[in-house]
């Protein structure tokens, strides 16, 4: 099976800093792939190498099994983390221009853009200049720009950042639809919670190195159900002192308790219900967020 994107042992160093150290990455065709990691982990550098914006110092980048070239790049849609449009351009002309660079004829891109504008709540605004739109609207325009040439692969760097809750939903629905249509989605983010429900596979990177790689379900399963979620009324500050509780993520009326080895969830429930009114109790798999924090903190660099 050919992969949509492969990075083979790529490395990229800037003058004083190594951004990516020997990264291997395989994105199966048609998957929703999460490239996760904190700020400065090397996500954007990896993506820029995938887009051939910068060349790797060593290693190899393959798009759909081949070395990248112009015609291959026309089959990718790229939305960088730093958003921006030509502020003085009219939206319609802006989209036509960007699509033309990807080899789409102006008449064709005009025809294609209308349903998308409509759908993302920008209907009737195509003759407005970019600087007349709000930031969120501009971001949606940029999303349309990313997919107007009907790419097989979409690389979205922090697609949700800067969107309001409604915008986030609209974006997520659009992404799901594209995935169902058989596109490969590569989503990079440091907000793991928003991406983990959507992705089939993830790679977690930190300090330019891969920390985790695999199917989301496999990764979570390997960590077991070691997290206890409690919702309660009362003062839960004593929870972290209970035997068997390794760490507490206390939200006030809601807490995630990470259990130590051999801890008994029932004993903890009992101890907690003595002093609190428990409204919810559940033993769950850890979130990617927790797994990531654990992986990054347990292995000091």
């Amino acid at each position, binding site marked *: 099976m050919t992969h949509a994107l492969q990075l083979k042992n790529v490395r990229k160093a800037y003058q004083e800093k190594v951004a990516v150290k020997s990264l291997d990455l395989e994105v199966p065709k048609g998957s929703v792939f999460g490239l996760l990691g904190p700020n400065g982990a090397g996500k954007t550098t990896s993506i820029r190498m995938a887009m051939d*914006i910068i060349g790797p110092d060593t290693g190899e980048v393959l798009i759909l099994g081949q070395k990248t070239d112009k015609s291959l790049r026309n089959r990718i849609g790229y939305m*960088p983390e730093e958003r921006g449009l030509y502020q*003085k351009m009219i939206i319609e002309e802006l989209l036509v*221009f*960007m699509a033309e660079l990807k080899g789409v004829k102006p008449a064709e891109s005009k025809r294609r853009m209308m349903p998308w504008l409509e759908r993302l709540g920008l209907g009737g605004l195509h003759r407005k200049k970019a600087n007349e739109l709000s930031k969120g609207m501009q971001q949606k325009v940029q999303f349309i720009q990313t997919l107007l040439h009907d790419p097989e692969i979409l690389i979205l760097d922090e697609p949700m950042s800067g969107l309001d809750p409604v915008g986030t939903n609209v974006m997520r629905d659009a992404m799901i639809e594209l995935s169902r249509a058989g596109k490969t989605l590569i989503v990079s983010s440091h907000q793991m919670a928003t991406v983990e429900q959507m992705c089939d596979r993830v790679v977690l990177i930190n300090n330019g190195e891969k920390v985790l790689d695999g199917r989301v379900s496999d990764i979570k399963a390997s960590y077991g159900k070691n997290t206890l979620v409690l919702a309660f009324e009362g003062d839960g500050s004593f929870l972290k002192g209970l035997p068997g509780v390794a760490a507490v993520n206390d939200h006030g009326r809601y807490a995630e308790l990470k259990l130590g080895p051999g801890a008994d969830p029932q004993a903890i429930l009992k101890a907690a219900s003595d002093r609190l009114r428990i409204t919810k109790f559940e033993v769950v798999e850890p979130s990617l967020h927790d797994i990531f924090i654990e992986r990054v903190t347990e292995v000091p660099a």
Partner: protein
Amino acid sequence: MSRDILVIAKREFIERVRTKAFVIGTILGPVFMAAIMIVPALMASKLAKSVSITVIDAEGSLRTLVEDSLRGGTGTPEAEKPEDPMNARPRNVGTTQFVIKPAVGADVAAQREAAKKAVLDGKLDVYVVLPQDVLKESKAEYYSKSVTDFEGIRAVDRAIEKAVFAKRIGAAGIDPAQIAALTRPLDLKRLRVSEEGEHEDKGISFFLSLILVMMIYVGTLMWGQIVMTGVIEEKSNRVVEVIVSSTTPRNLLFGKLVGVGGAGLLQFGIWILGLVGVSAASGSLAFLSGLELPALNPVLIAAFPIFFLLGFFLYASLYAAIGSAVNTIQEAQNFIFPVMLPIIMAMVCWPVVMRAPDSTLSVVLSLIPFMTPILMFLRMSVLMPPVWQIALSVVLTSLAIALVIWIAARIYRVGILMYGKPPNFPEMLRWVRHG
């Protein structure tokens, strides 16, 4: 050539041409140039100055001679000379028309008193007093509320001098008419020698070709700066990353140069058409009839776009490299001066080349690529150089452009994705080497 270059050039061109600044500049340019040509000519015909003058003659025999001279019978020699081309002062500007007012009073003292009163009352502009011993001492007096009308004072001076000379020559027994014929003022015509024959150069058409040289200078810097601003904008609003994910930085740079250069060329084209149009239409426009408007050398008009583009590509690619390396226009200021230096040097060399357009120094200077756009074009407007020199300068500059674009593209490629502290020159050189 990649199709992307055309797509980018088209966008740049349309965006530039659409701006208000472009539209206004394009319209105002010809208006401004027409003003340069027409206003002096109009001034010449409308602004002749009238000065009332009284001649008080204590010597007794000079008055009519002086008055005749002032009236312009045999004329005020100064005003009859053709315009001075180097100052581009059209004919008769500042010509003084004297209105003679007879002296009032029984004797010289009374006349002086009356004239002084008339000047103070504003009824008279000037009175001159010719003392009794004027023929011997060669001294006379000019009275007016202000003594800064140099043109008028010189005319008065000449008129008195002429009368005094005539009187002295007459006293020596020579016929004044014969003297007048013998000492007729000289009219030095300026003629340019060329293959097509000699023709009189009115000076002002030369002046116009200098305007073209200035246009190349200003245009190169202005449109170069526009390229730089565009690059900085693209970088600061982060559009550039999307574009270089679709095409190469080299294509982006080249498309930008072609598009912006095209916009500049369009504006200059409209200006020059306007210029030629005004010249051509001057015959049929009633209020311009009789005015002599200058004509431009067609060879220069044809060469203008070539030399403008040479200058533009050379400097604009450097401007683009600067723009890519910085984040704001303020940061760019530190880098601009070294880039502008050669073209400023060319402007400094201007007088040298104009004085001796075919000297070895001028030839060498005009063949230096960074100076060619200004100095070769200047030489062409002063004294058409041999064709091989023009061709060589174009070839050398084109080679320099290829080199500069190659260097600029390497800086550009690294620079557009660099944010934060702008690099220094050694760092940029490293980008060029490793880019």
